[in-house]
């Protein structure tokens, strides 16, 4: 078998050194009647054969790049420079472990330090960690952290928070006795979250651009929350928006969480992605996840190490701020590389280009009879109201080679939002894609 270096000769020689008669002697602690079970699976296959089998499955999917593609709702299709994928495949990055031995892991540690700084700058916060699994788990961890900071158990969620983020948060928080308060989702009118904050409230969780693509300035809400001793947690699903929008930090957020997939990472049918987590420095000791910090070596040279690990499970065990261990290392690297390539000039231009594509798309769709664009303001994603259930429209358009967006009925099942369609545009959409979408939509309505 190509992956196994030992030859039969080696195995015999090694058993001799060990003083065992057979390999199964080494398994003597396993109940004999359970050893070497019958396994109903095929034997090993050549590379060629495995490739054929997996390519056959892949061929049954419609790749986003082969369609006119306008789906977002928490994951966005952006162009990732070839350099990014080349670098993350460097053996030294790809096949290394968590940097537990800093002297031979400076490559990983330095980019984590750069990543933390990039995230802090983008979100307008003081510190950021070395990543969480994704935006949704980062959101849940933020709520748990707010509970630790405030010693309170009441959580207010915006109805326009991505429902997956809300569900993950609810699943985690209710388990330890926290109560969740959340208005129904809706696109008409604004929700009064300030009014829901009381003296028991640990935090209020909001999102901008929200799940419908609407934009918000939470400065007032931050004041309201702080007035009651609650924390403001701002979430986002499209990190590119931070290139064009006022940062959550500026709005007064205490914790900022979001999805970093858009930068450096492919759609991957939902994962792996990279959760961004930033906060005010005063709360750093309550933060979950790994932190990389600067230090010096025995010669006084600058270097980096994992630090403040007394917060973490391997030291603090059941008192840890989180149970997270493996995080999104390589996805952080992809993020850091792509963001280093973009830089200030690139990310701001990219953000505006995304916005312009969305504006064009909104105008094109609005021109289709029966279609109404709900948002007056948006970044690269917005919501339209259709004359019939969006799910049917999306399926009909899929047959025409258009991936049209996220139907309200799928995003918010049973919430009576079935006529809504959440639509996204990015720099990858051509004007032809946009025209094709509008034309096809006209046909199916």
């Amino acid at each position: 078998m190509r992956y196994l270096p030992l030859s039969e000769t080696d195995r015999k020689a090694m058993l001799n050194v060990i003083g065992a008669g057979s390999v199964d002697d080494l398994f003597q602690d396993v109940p004999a009647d359970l050893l070497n079970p019958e396994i109903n699976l095929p034997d090993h296959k050549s590379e060629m054969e495995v490739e054929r089998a997996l390519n056959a499955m892949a061929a049954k999917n419609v790749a986003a790049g082969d369609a006119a593609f306008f789906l977002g709702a928490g994951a966005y299709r952006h162009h990732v420079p070839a350099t990014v994928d080349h670098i993350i495949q460097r053996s030294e990055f790809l096949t290394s472990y968590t940097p537990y031995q800093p002297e031979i892991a400076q490559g990983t540690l330095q980019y984590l330090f750069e990543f933390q700084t990039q995230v802090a700058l983008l979100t307008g916060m003081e510190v950021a960690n070395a990543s969480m699994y994704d935006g949704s788990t980062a959101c849940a961890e933020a709520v748990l952290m707010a509970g630790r900071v405030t010693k309170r158990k009441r959580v207010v969620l915006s109805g326009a928070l991505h429902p997956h983020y809300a569900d993950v948060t609810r699943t985690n928080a209710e388990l330890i006795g926290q109560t969740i308060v959340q208005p129904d989702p809706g696109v008409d009118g604004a929700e009064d979250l300030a009014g829901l904050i009381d003296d028991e409230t640990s935090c209020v969780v909001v999102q901008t651009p929200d799940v419908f693509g609407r934009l918000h300035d939470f400065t007032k809400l931050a004041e309201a929350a702080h007035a009651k001793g609650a924390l403001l947690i701002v979430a986002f699903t499209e990190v590119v928006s931070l290139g064009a929008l006022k940062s959550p930090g500026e709005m007064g957020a205490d914790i900022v969480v979001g999805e970093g997939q858009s930068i450096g990472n492919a759609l991957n049918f939902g994962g792996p992605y990279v959760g961004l987590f930033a906060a005010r420095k005063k709360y750093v000791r309550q933060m979950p996840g790994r932190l990389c910090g600067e230090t010096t070596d025995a010669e006084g040279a600058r270097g980096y190490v994992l630090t403040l690990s007394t917060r973490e499970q391997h030291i603090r065990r059941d008192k840890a701020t989180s149970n997270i261990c493996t995080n999104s290392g390589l996805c952080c690297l992809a993020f850091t590389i792509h963001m280093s390539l973009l830089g200030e000039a690139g990310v701001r231009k990219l953000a505006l280009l995304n916005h312009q594509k969305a504006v064009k798309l909104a105008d094109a769709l609005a021109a289709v009879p029966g279609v109404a664009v709900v948002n007056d303001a948006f970044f690269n994603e917005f919501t339209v109201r259709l004359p019939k259930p969006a799910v049917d429209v999306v399926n009909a358009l899929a047959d025409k080679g258009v991936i049209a967006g996220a139907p309200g009925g799928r995003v918010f099942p049973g919430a009576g939002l079935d006529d809504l369609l959440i639509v996204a545009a990015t720099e990858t959409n051509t004007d032809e894609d946009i025209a094709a979408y509008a034309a096809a939509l006209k046909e199916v309505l």
Partner: protein
Amino acid sequence: MSMNDQGRPTRGQSVDMADFAPTFTGNRGLRLKEDLIFEVGDLETTGVDVPDLDDTPSRLGGVQRADDIGLPGLSEPEAMRHFVRLSRNNYAIDMGPFTLGSCTMKHNPRLNEKMARVKGFADVHPMQPESTVQGALELIDTLAHWLKEMTGMPAVAMSPKAGAHGELCGMMAIKAAIDAKGEGATRTRVLAPESAHGTNPATAAQCGFTVDDIPADASGRVDMAAFKEKLGPDVAGIMLTNPNTCGLFEKDVREIADAVHAAGGYFYCDGANFNAIVGKARPGDLGVDAMHINLHKTFSTPHGGGGPGSGPVVLSEALAPYAPLPYVVREAETFRIVENQEGDARPFGRLTAFHGQMGMFVRALSYMMSHGADGMRQASEDAVLNANYVMARLSAEMTASYEGPTMHEALFDDRFLKDTGVETIDFAKAMIDEGYHPMTMYFPLVVHGAMLIEPTESESKRELDTFCDALLFLAREAKAGRTDRFKAAPRFAPKRRLDETAAARKPILRWEPPVEEAVAQAAE
């Protein structure tokens, strides 16, 4: 042999001070220094040509960003060089043995990387209409089938994002099952061996359970008497790693499972060490109710310097109904992704956005199909053989903590360093100079100055022999009182020993512009 011939004899002598006069750049041949991107780049430079904007009016509704973010940009050549230089300061499996115990650092086949990048997998959105993702759902269903077959368990939850997330998934399912029996208020205690990995107690606590440690017996396994002592009506279950974190198989596992079940609790098995028994024994046969599988360990998806991982959780009949959303079901020839409660399923909730680590699923299935049932069994046998070989050879100079045979890991403690002034960490750092990544240090906590070595099946005998020769040499050096070699270590790494205490005392967690700059910026 010839390795030792390559001029080493003379290398010692030939070294004189001239050899080490500092260089002007601070580089040393191919050992290159590299500053932070913040020192290399600037706000004007960019390494991406974004197509030009037109005059489409903006619709940002007044919340656009006012001032600079402060992000440096690098041209593509600068970025390439920056990250390539950084990478060269890392150790990796592709460079040599990476014997971190409990981490299963095995070979990462590049076929897996190739397959994960096929556009039909990589360029597919999790919310596309089902008709356009049948192949993706088929892949998840197929991997699920392989995992269930290998573990002998009836169900599997695919969405957990790593091992610890899998633990959360399993313990949440247990909590849901207990609540369903109306025992939520009473069954609040979880038993776990002292040797347990930190994520176990952390997970239990995150689910609202209290954790109660079980001592180990002289053989390094669960002390059965103490364990039974601790059973009671308030016990929600046990979290047991098997093979355990000392690399030993828990002989009494079936008795443990039966006892816990008899007491009305559940058996959570930490599957981080599954690599020792894949194809050799099935957790399902051992009475396990839930076990996470680290695809990034047992099934070779790359560690990537700390992730991403993937931690599917196999579940028993008793826990299957509580599996989280979403999950894939096959209906005749088509596949469906269930995102909301349906039928008599009682999902405890949702663990993550979307459907889990698809990128890792592709890699893991590529690994499993490549090995097949025969190859996976052989891999486990080789992993165990390699560990026992290392245990046998190193015992000549080092002190093994427990009687063998061991499983996939060889555990040593620091007794052999007694009175040498050399500690486990010094020994580990000296290994770095010899070209090796140290084993896991100071874990598990049950032995003093632990050194936990997991070679995995990916190491050749030749590689292991050199590795053992080097460690035996170091052990003799330590005993011979050559402490410099250890205290000064690492001497040849990209950095000398780093001060972790200073780092934690006043944490510097991000780059800040040098004061002059900051002032200048403010001035603008």
